[in-house]
């Protein structure tokens, strides 16, 4: 009988779960015996969510949206739901019950001092579904991306409304001027078509502009096929420069009087800058693909390639920083995002999505992702050790491998039975927002003190355990957040230069979030666009997501009429003294509460004008549970809502700062011969803080230990 290989997976976030699912596939014939060690009471890491005991309301770490290009993550979840084969009356029977397409993306744009406008861009459904096998063609070629530049422009055209512009026909002396005349004539013809709808006529003109972009790409493709040297690439770029000038001339005439056309122009401008930059920087032939420009900031690189200041400050570009919390040290004055990864992310987001640009989870992320994953893994025989916190990774004397793992046991169950972590909320297995104290030894006291084993600095210990190599594990998958690595991996960092550089150079950021439940629909509060996820607004909360789809998943006695999530970075300087993010700070929770109250009082009126008066926010709009109703008034009523300061090292969001990505270590890299790592902070191919990166990393970790999945089956790993 072949001896099973014992794998200790430390941490229960997306990466760890992905690794566990891969290592326990039936095809491995039970080769791996997996035990997952988890701090506290729930899986999920930064994606963990909880249910309030009284109302069943969902409480998240922040806003989680799945994008239509999360191929590996969707594939994983589809497999989980298929394997569970839940009964027909289950509220989340299939993955498509759990994830619903969302075709709108919103950005808030600043028109002037304290003047803002919203833009809800509609992205049409794309062919296929995320996680479908790829069969037609590789979506990750630069050529394919350039073709899709046109698709982006076209789909954006659909979101553009009325206009009034009447550009002066231009004539010229050069070939670009002839192109200019062509564009002008097309615009002129549609404007003089009295029979057409006013709203549609400009679209025709803009479609013509889309055609110009198409031809820019066609020209580019010719150039790509003909040229063989960077010198010639630059010549091709000069053709694009000419086209860009033509397009810009046309749009300069239009945008002066039409902000909606300006948005189109800004996208066109950025798209052209991307094409130009790809050529100028030799990205087509760079051995390291887009990594060749990772030393630039995204905006810096676009500007270097001709994007206008206005485009660089457009809602879409600002929104890309907001969505990735891309602010060094959480300082909004220091936006910073590695250009290569930003380009990779943007191209994948806009050009390779399937089904919809966004997919919204229909319950908490814990309920939708980690419950089915847990149930599948449990069925497959994975052992879960909750309330186990890793304290130290011990190296062998020769520093070649992990010899032991020191664990602190935070709590023990009554009578030594396994902890059963889920609660039922309207037929759905959910993770509670606090441990299920009644299963724990000394549970009544822990409940009374509202003990939170995830809290920063919690040091409760009811015992310790040292896991030893060959006895308790053969392999280790370190799947904790990067923020905790310096503390628990000091021996590895001391022994290995790459580990030292990684922990020095790769940065993370704290985040803040709050959720409000309202007793009126947002439409009654003055919101007149579709349900939306919108970024680019003012700090301290730049992003708002309408989460009304969750109302019927919660378990209120009297349901709310609206649910809204807000989130943003949390500046380290406002929380930590002397930049020391490893020491528990004071007052972070209160700071986020104050920020939220200030935001509702001062800023939310832009989204919900009827929710505020000259005296500020109407606090009676906040929906409270039966036990809290009437207990508080005014801003104190906010106490009934939910907010969080994500400052625990493992909760910090991983940043993709310029000139840092090269310091990430791959799960495949063999620095210690029985250890691999997993998390969105690793060199996983998609170097951004997101579910997809975490899952890819987990797949790589599994591949490092078992040889499977094969690297070419990790979608998007081999990406420029």
């Amino acid at each position: 009988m072949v001896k099973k290989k014992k794998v200790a997976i430390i941490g229960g976030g997306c990466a760890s779960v992905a690794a566990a699912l891969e290592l326990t596939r039936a095809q491995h014939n039970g080769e791996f015996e997996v035990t997952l060690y988890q701090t506290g009471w729930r899986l999920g890491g930064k994606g963990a969510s909880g249910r309030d005991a009284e109302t069943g309301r969902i409480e998240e770490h922040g806003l989680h949206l799945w994008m239509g290009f999360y191929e590996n993550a969707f594939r994983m979840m589809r497999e989980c739901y298929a394997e569970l084969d839940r009964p027909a009356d289950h509220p989340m029977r299939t993955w498509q019950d759990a994830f619903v397409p969302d075709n709108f993306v919103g950005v808030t744009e600043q028109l002037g001092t304290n003047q803002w406008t919203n833009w809800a861009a509609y992205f049409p459904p794309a062919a296929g579904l995320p996680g479908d096998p790829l069969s037609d063609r590789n979506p990750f070629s630069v050529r394919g991306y350039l073709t899709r530049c046109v698709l982006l422009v076209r789909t954006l055209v659909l979101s553009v409304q009325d206009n009034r512009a009447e550009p002066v026909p231009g004539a010229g002396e050069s070939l670009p001027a002839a192109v200019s005349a062509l564009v002008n004539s097309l615009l002129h013809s549609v404007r003089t078509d009295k029979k057409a709808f006013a709203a549609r006529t400009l679209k025709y003109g803009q479609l013509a502009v889309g055609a110009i972009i198409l031809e820019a790409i066609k020209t580019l493709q010719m150039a790509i096929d003909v040229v063989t040297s960077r010198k010639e690439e630059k010549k091709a770029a000069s053709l694009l420069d000419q086209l860009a000038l033509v397009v810009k001339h046309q749009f300069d005439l239009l945008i002066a009087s039409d902000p909606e056309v300006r948005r189109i122009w800004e996208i066109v401008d950025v798209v052209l800058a991307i094409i130009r930059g790809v050529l100028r920087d030799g990205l087509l032939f760079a051995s390291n693909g887009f990594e060749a420009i990772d030393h630039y900031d995204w905006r810096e690189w676009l500007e270097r390639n001709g994007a206008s200041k206005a485009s660089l400050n457009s809602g879409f570009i600002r929104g890309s920083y907001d969505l990735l919390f891309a602010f060094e040290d959480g300082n909004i004055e220091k936006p910073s995002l590695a250009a290569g990864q930003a380009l990779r992310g943007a191209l994948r987001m806009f050009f390779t999505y399937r089904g919809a640009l966004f997919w919204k989870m229909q319950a908490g992320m814990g309920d939708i992702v980690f419950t089915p994953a847990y149930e599948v893994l449990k069925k497959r025989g994975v052992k879960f050790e909750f309330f186990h916190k890793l304290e130290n990774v011990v190296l062998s004397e020769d520093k070649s491998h992990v010899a032991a793992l020191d664990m602190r046991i935070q709590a023990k169950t009554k009578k030594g039975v396994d902890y059963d972590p889920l609660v039922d909320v309207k037929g759905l297995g959910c993770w509670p927002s606090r441990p299920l104290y009644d299963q724990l030894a000394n549970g009544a006291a822990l409940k009374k003190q509202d003990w939170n084993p995830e809290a920063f600095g919690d040091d409760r210990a009811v015992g310790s355990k040292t896991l030893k190599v060959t006895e308790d594990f053969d392999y280790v998958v370190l799947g904790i957040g990067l923020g905790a690595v310096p503390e628990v991996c000091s021996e590895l960092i001391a022994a290995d230069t790459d580990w030292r550089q990684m922990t020095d150079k790769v940065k993370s950021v704290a985040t803040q979030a709050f959720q409000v439940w309202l007793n009126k629909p947002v439409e009654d509060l003055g919101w007149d666009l579709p349900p939306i996820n919108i970024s680019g607004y003012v700090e301290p909360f730049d992003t708002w997501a309408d989460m009304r789809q969750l109302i019927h998943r919660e378990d209120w006695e009297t349901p709310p009429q609206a649910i809204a999530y807000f989130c943003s970075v949390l500046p380290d300087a406002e929380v930590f003294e002397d930049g020391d993010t490893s020491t528990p700070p004071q007052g972070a929770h209160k700071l986020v509460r104050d920020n939220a109250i200030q935001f509702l009082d001062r800023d939310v009126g832009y989204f919900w004008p009827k929710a505020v008066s000259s005296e500020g926010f109407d606090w009676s709009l906040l929906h409270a549970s039966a036990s809290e109703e009437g207990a508080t008034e005014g801003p104190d009523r906010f106490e009934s809502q939910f907010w969080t300061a994500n400052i625990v090292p493992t909760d910090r969001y991983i940043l993709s700062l310029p000139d840092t990505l090269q310091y990430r270590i791959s799960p495949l890299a063999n620095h210690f011969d029985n250890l691999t790592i997993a998390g969105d902070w690793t060199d996983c191919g998609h170097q951004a803080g997101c579910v997809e990166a975490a899952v890819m990393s987990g797949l790589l970790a599994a591949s490092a230990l078992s040889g499977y999945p094969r690297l070419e089956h990790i979608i998007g790993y081999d990406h420029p």
Partner: protein
Amino acid sequence: MDNPERIKRPQPERTKPNRNVLGALGQSDAMLGSLDAAQSPIDGGHPLGPGFSDPVQKSATYGNAGSDPFGLIDEGVRAASDLVDAHIRQGEETAKSLGKSAAGISLAQTDVSGLLTGLVRAYSDVASVWVDIVGSLAHRIDGTGAAKADPTQTQGLISTIGLSITSAGSVETGIEMFRPAMDVRPQPLVSTSVTPPAQITDVAFDAGQPGTAGKIRVTVPKGQTPGVYHGLLLSASDQTPVGVLTLRVLGQTPQEGPA
């Protein structure tokens, strides 16, 4: 001293993603094909291969064209997308032929003006068809049904044009009509293949007698810089392009008389 029972990680085939030109220009079809193979990951097939079957989900579609006007627009865009794809393929074919004929020749040595003239023509095609497609959809949204061609509208349309050149030197010419037009307004001929850019401004259209083909008259000034010149032919009624006139001024010994 190492524990003999201890298991070490297998050596990975590589530790970095393949981001080089193979990745940039697309992985091999064979590799992509293997993604669909009904094999287990152990066998090297797609991880979702065996046992992963969800035909209901896979057949799900969105954007029902018949359900709302927005869906119609969506379908219009998709139709246009097909057209765009056709153009891309056409461009690729052109590029291939260009590559064959220009093997070893840099882009700078190819006829940039010709390339761009083709470019102008191509996006005129794309844009006009595009407008037609979406315009038809607009009619459908209006409830007026798809626009139908009126056979009477073809009467009097110009589909062929004659050419009269007056030049002190040798020239080569050509006219390409994109579509018929009621009236034609030629634009000055310009060239960016010469330095500094040059133009030929004496270009006019003579409609001629009813029932006869119209004619474009071009006068090439003496001493005109050799090079390729081109000019759009616009519809006089709506200023949309209906064709392009290309004229190559050669650098040989001057000859008298019209070409």
